């Protein structure tokens, strides 16, 4: 008997196993098939052809480095030295960083042992380690070079344009001008622009050294010059961060304030009338279904770009979500506490204040604070659409496609901002819920 039973059991067990195995493999096959379809639908193969990998290289190197341009106009012989080619980063005539020697022949140290000399007569000589000296010259309307018929791989040469790429530097000569770029690690001009007297001075000198600008005290002057830095716009960036946080703050708490009274109307135990309850629930569902994207578009039409529009878009979308969450919390409260308050002769408002609110506040506060953190991220995105806050600055910097170091700066700030809000909301949540539980 027992032997047969065991055999039956084993058979049924192995049937079950096989079915589960099949289901498992079926699921896996389904996922793989779906991904294959998606790869086809998204045209992955075509994408690989269209992708511009050189953009990725530009993005990667520009975000952590800056370059200094040294430019000679062939017609006038004028020489200009500018950081990133920016007007605010241009050295005054007769001044240069210490790796450039001014004079009849301008010598530019290119780093890694290479030196370029801009000689009179529009001739440029480059001393290249492991190669020797290369000579480029403007002759008539063409550029001559002595690299020979088969130039090395780091040279691209034609009659109208010769480009020599060295580690950390690049020399380009065209009939109109000679350009030398030298790359350096870091974000230059981040603290002070060249027209500030504090440029090139360390924190020790500014804090304890002699007065650099006779008009102002060192610390106040340095703070002012940093704050009004015309290349990095620290003031505007700080405002943009504040705007984004403001959008999240106003939107989240405004939504909670709007949703709280309405949630009573959508909760079964407070609104026995089926029609009213159903109506408010459908309103909440509708608001959530319309989605923040469409609310943002509609509100941007009415209020124009700015932080108020973003705050209202978050407010409206989250009012729907909070209404649903709050009414569910209200339905789950303990009725005894309300009855106790009622027995003392309290009216409806008093019952809500002393019987209901203390029960739901920890739940609500925890939800609202969680949303505050996630809305900081949403406010960045909504800001990019409506035009406000750090989201706008980020999209603008990306669209110009040249200030990648600024893009990197904004990204770092955004990540720090979201992490700070995450930390803050976690702290507040712990404090509030701890108190709610009676600790």
């Amino acid at each position, binding site marked *: 008997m027992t032997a047969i039973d065991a055999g039956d059991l084993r058979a049924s067990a192995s049937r079950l196993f096989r079915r589960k195995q099949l289901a498992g493999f079926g699921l896996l096959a389904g996922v793989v098939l*779906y*991904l294959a379809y*998606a790869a086809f*639908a*998204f*045209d*992955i193969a075509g*994408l690989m052809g*269209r*992708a*511009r990998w050189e*953009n*990725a290289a530009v*993005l990667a190197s520009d975000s952590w480095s800056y370059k200094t341009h040294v430019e000679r106009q062939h017609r006038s012989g004028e020489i200009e030295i500018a950081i990133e080619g920016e007007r605010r980063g241009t050295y005054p005539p007769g001044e240069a960083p210490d790796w450039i020697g001014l004079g009849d022949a301008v010598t530019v140290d290119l780093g890694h042992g290479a030196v370029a000399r801009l000689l009179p007569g529009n001739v440029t000589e480059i001393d290249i380690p492991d190669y020797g000296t290369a000579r480029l010259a403007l002759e008539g309307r063409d550029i001559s070079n002595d690299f020979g018929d088969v130039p090395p791989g780091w040279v691209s040469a034609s009659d109208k344009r010769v480009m020599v790429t060295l580690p950390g530097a690049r020399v380009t000569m065209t009939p109109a001008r000679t350009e030398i770029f030298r790359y350096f690690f870091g974000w230059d001009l981040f603290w002070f622009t060249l027209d500030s007297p504090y440029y090139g001075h360390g924190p020790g000198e500014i804090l304890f050294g002699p007065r650099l600008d006779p008009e102002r005290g060192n610390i106040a002057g340095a703070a002012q010059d940093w704050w009004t830095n015309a290349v990095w716009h620290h003031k505007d960036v700080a405002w943009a961060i504040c*705007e984004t946080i*403001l*959008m999240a*703050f*106003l939107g989240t*708490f*405004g939504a909670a304030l709007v949703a709280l009274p309405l949630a009573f109307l959508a909760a079964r135990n407070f609104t026995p009338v089926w029609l009213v309850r159903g109506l408010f629930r459908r309103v909440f*569902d509708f608001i*959530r*279904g*319309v*989605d*923040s*994207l*469409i609310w943002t*578009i*509609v*509100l941007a*039409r*009415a*209020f*124009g*770009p*700015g*932080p*108020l*529009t973003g*705050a209202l878009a978050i407010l409206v979308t989250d009012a729907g979500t909070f209404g649903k969450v709050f009414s569910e919390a209200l339905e789950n409260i303990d009725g005894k506490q309300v009855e106790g308050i009622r027995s003392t002769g309290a009216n409806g408002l008093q019952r809500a204040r002393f019987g209901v609110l203390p029960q739901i506040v920890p739940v609500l506060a925890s939800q609202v604070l969680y949303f505050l953190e996630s809305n900081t*991220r949403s406010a*960045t*995105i909504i800001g*990019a*659409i409506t*035009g*406000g806050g750090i989201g706008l600055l*980020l*999209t603008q910097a*990306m669209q110009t*496609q040249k200030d990648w170091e600024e*893009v990197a700066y904004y*990204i770092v700030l*955004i*990540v720090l901002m*979201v*992490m700070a809000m*995450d930390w803050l909301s976690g702290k507040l949540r712990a404090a509030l819920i701890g108190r709610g539980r009676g600790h």
Partner: protein
Amino acid sequence: MTDLASPPTGAIRDSYMAELRRRRLYGGLALLVFAALMAAGFRTANDRNAGGFLDGLHRVGDYPAMVLSEAWEKRAQLPAKLLEYLPDLVETLNIAAVSTLAGALAGTVLAFLSIPGLAPWPRMVPLFRRLMDLMRAIPEIVIALMLIFVLGGGPVPAVIAIAFHTAGALGKLFSEVAENADAKPVEGLASVGAAWGQRMALGVLPQVAPNFLSYALLRFEINVRASAILGFVGAGGIGYELKNAMAWGPGRFGDAAAIFVLLFGAIVAFDQLSGHVRRRLVEGTRT
């Protein structure tokens, strides 16, 4: 005895009332500060906005009314328009689905790597936790915009951006679930010589699969919305078409209305569907 007991009662009452008054004062002050912050914040936002709140309030209905009236005039074309934009909706849904799948897979691995009891390298646990924090903190739009610069517009930047964020968000939720999983099956598997991957797949995953699935479905709802928004900044799908239709302005509002309808319908349908499935999953684990 009663003589001894009565004075303390009064003292207790006094101290209780004093405590209550202090609590009320603090509560009132906190409320006041909060109200002042809200008012000041609202004023600042209002001042920095292009249009003021009161000016704009009566214009809120104008744009929907314009779209709806034009859509009503062209109501005969609506079914055709809906059909025309259906492929874009499918693309948006595909973006959400693929990124949720990829994000959930990566999130599962990250979750198992960041639970002290289960991780193969316990010393690396804080590293993986910080990594997940970082992945959650970077808004999708940042990655999407950078990838659009390199890869060009289209769905792939959106998929990668959303999947990256999803991996961080789901990884955290998954690790909270898997932390509470029963360790006995893992020990049993370890005793028969199972490798780490086998222990996780056969010992932990079956316990937590319903919760994982429930969270992943919730994330899918969120990702449908996110992929529509990313479309608006150039990552393909229905958001991109919406932006185009809006840029055309009057004359294309019929298209905009059709896209609104599709997006609204899809979001509500997937909310309901995933809500239903999630309720069943959670109830299934309880019985």
